[in-house]
């Protein structure tokens, strides 16, 4: 009788332990696969640690910047000559830009249109750290809710789109790069051709070839290598006209029903130090 009771008790403990273990594992899976938002307490911890990190890395940054500065000094004269040539054209571009802006303003007024897909406000941020997990390509930047950063904001650098904000704390935010293999969201893109624009969906990133895949492009569309890919502005997140990359290959899908395009970004994803966040003005 005593032995049976002891066995029952042991079985109960095993069942309860398995149950608790399953709940914990389920919770972890849910936390990792969804974009979890930090609680106020967690945000405070994250901000404090990253502030300490920023203070410690300040002298390192200073030394690295000095070294880079010295290296760049050697190329300065060549760059000066190039810029001198470009400056000659700038006045022409400036005038053209002003004229176009004025024209756009008048057209908006005429159509009673408050905002377009191209309207956005921008502000800059410094990269604080990079993902430690080899698989999820993310960066942490030094701008957070305090500076007006909200989840979903697109992040760009001079050479194109790099990703979007997936999590924010008071003074820092996390940006998931478009090179992340686990990107679930698709981006609506347009490809410049001789006859106008062709539309497609930027769906995934191929880690081996270091190219993005664009799907949903009709077989009848003639697309050349080197064509420029930009965002369409459709959807809530990305404004129109942000450069993403260039087409490097065209093939058909498995069933020969549509074109699949390979696109290479001009951004050097291995050395991103400063980013610009865009806020849609809709």
């Amino acid at each position, binding site marked *: 009788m005593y032995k049976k009771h002891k066995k029952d008790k042991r079985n109960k403990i095993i069942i309860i332990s398995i149950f608790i273990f399953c709940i914990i594992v389920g919770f972890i899976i849910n936390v*990792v*696969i969804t974009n979890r938002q930090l609680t106020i307490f967690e945000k405070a911890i994250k901000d404090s640690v*990253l502030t300490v990190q920023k203070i410690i890395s300040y002298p*390192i940054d200073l030394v690295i910047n000095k070294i880079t500065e010295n290296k760049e000094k050697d190329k300065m004269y060549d760059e000066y000559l190039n810029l001198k040539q470009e400056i000659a054209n700038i006045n022409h571009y400036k005038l053209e830009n002003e004229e176009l802006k004025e024209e756009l303003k008048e057209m908006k007024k005429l159509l009673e249109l408050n905002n377009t897909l191209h309207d956005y406000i921008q502000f800059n941020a410094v990269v604080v750290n990079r993902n*430690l*997990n*080899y698989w999820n390509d993310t960066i942490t930047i030094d701008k957070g809710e305090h500076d007006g950063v909200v989840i979903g904001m697109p992040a760009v650098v001079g050479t194109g789109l790099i990703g979007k904000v997936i999590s924010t704390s008071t003074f820092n935010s996390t940006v998931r790069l478009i090179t992340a293999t*686990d990107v679930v969201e698709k981006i609506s893109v347009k490809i410049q051709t001789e006859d106008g624009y062709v539309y497609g969906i930027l769906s995934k990133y191929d880690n081996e070839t270091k190219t993005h895949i664009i799907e949903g492009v009709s077989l009848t569309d003639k697309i050349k290598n080197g064509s420029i890919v930009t965002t369409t502005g459709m959807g809530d997140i990305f404004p129109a006209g942000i450069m993403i990359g260039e087409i490097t290959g065209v093939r058909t899908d498995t069933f020969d029903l549509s074109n699949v395009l390979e696109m290479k970004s001009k951004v050097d994803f291995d*050395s991103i130090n400063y980013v610009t966040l865009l806020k849609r003005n809709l």
Partner: protein
Amino acid sequence: MIVIVSSLSFILDGILSRYLYSSTFFLPLFTIVSLIIIYPYFNNHYDKYFRYLMIIGSLYDIVYFNTLFYNFFLFILIGFIVGFINYLLSNNLYTNILITSVSIVFYRFATYIFMVIFKNFNFDINILIKSIYSSLILNIIYCIIIYLITEIYSKKHKIVRSK
């Protein structure tokens, strides 16, 4: 000693990730290395060691991953590996290098398998191997440096550590 080594490694992980990301062979996982180095300083107080691992794991989750209980559990499992190898072998530089290698292989393997199962990654053995060897070299170098520094410091200040 324990707090200094682990906090330094924790902060360095974040700082160096920014500078060394572009290099294929030097991805830092210093916090994991610090878990191995600090183990002898707990003098067989396993409960304290595991409580410490839980705190570091939770911080690692919040600061670098925006997750909860993920690294917390992985760090506990690494703690078991560290304890087991230290139980079999005496604690010296070579043992620490061995534990660092095993822990990094385990950490990368566990995270990759998790991603393959729950985040629909395609399983590619080459990516897994690349992730492992890219982390090994730098972390072993860090392990050697930090082991020698702590060894000299503990001898100088007569800090007791289990062998």
